[in-house]
């Protein structure tokens, strides 16, 4: 067993109706303490109404070296944005 506590990713919902947002990460031996640490580290100034903690090991991330194939093909395809198309006047406000 590693002496170092595992890493946890912390997500906090700032207000009712908003999504949880990633705020950072911290070390803790288990989920319960990760929650408590998150409360102490990230919500001192009334930032949150809800906390999620996720083991960092459970996250699968895209590789930085795949950035080109993953994201660049969409750069020159402006027609994928709805604003690319002209809307006939008779449609009015959408």
């Amino acid at each position: 067993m590693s002496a170092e506590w595992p890493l946890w990713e912390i997500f906090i919902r700032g207000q009712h109706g908003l999504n949880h947002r990633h705020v950072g990460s911290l070390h803790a031996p288990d989920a319960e303490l990760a929650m408590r640490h998150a409360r102490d580290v990230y919500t001192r100034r009334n930032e949150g109404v809800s906390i999620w903690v996720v083991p960092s090991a459970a996250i699968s991330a895209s590789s930085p070296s795949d950035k080109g194939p993953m994201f660049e093909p969409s750069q020159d395809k402006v027609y994928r944005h709805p604003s690319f198309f002209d809307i006939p006047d008779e449609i009015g406000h959408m």
Partner: protein
Amino acid sequence: MGAVVDLDAALFEGLCRLGDSTLVLGHRVSEWCGQAPVLEEDIALANVALDLIGQTQMWLGLAGEVEGRERTSDTLAYHRDVWDFRNLLLVERPNGDFGHTLMRQFLFDAWHQPMLAGLAQSRDTRVAEIAVKAGKEVAYHLERSADLVIRLGDGSGESHARMQAALDTLWPYTGEMMVPDATDAALAEAGIMPDLNGLRTTWDALVQDVLAEATLTIPESGFMHKGGKQGQHSEHLGHMLATMQFLPRAYPDATW
């Protein structure tokens, strides 16, 4: 009229007991800043210290108001000497190791939480308002310290031994919290502060539950130190105050 004056004096005394205990414990816990075993615990300890010092400002602020001699919470905190302090002996005990600090915190929190619940029912609305505000913070302190006492007591062989040693050392300082003197009795009689005898049942039940789960053994000796509430302190408090009070005493006009 005499009785009214006496009650104000008792209230001043009672408020100093509350405010001095939170001040001294808050300062003790703040001594961990930058020293805790891991970053997350360092921040958590600093948060607890700040909560306690915030509560001190309210208790000592009200004490100064009740006394009516124009002393503020700062005057009371920084310009009184050891024999004027009315904190519990438990909170002036040195930090020791991390387990020792947590055991001291738990034994205090287990008293502090029901004490504030009682104070929230005070006939004096100023007292009740402070107690309600502090109660939310202290509910978290208790949850945290109880959980960590259980984890460390029921942890490795070494953590268990350290927690048992901390309990053995600190236990004789717990009795004072629940033994009322004439001041406590007068305040309870007037409905301003709870009856300390009544807190014992709650404290006993909570402490026994948590320590049993932590696989720790309560010492059998019934010997208890007393005197902190009346201003008789161990040598540790003087050393602590020398550090804590140095700046405002050396530079009385300092502001920040």
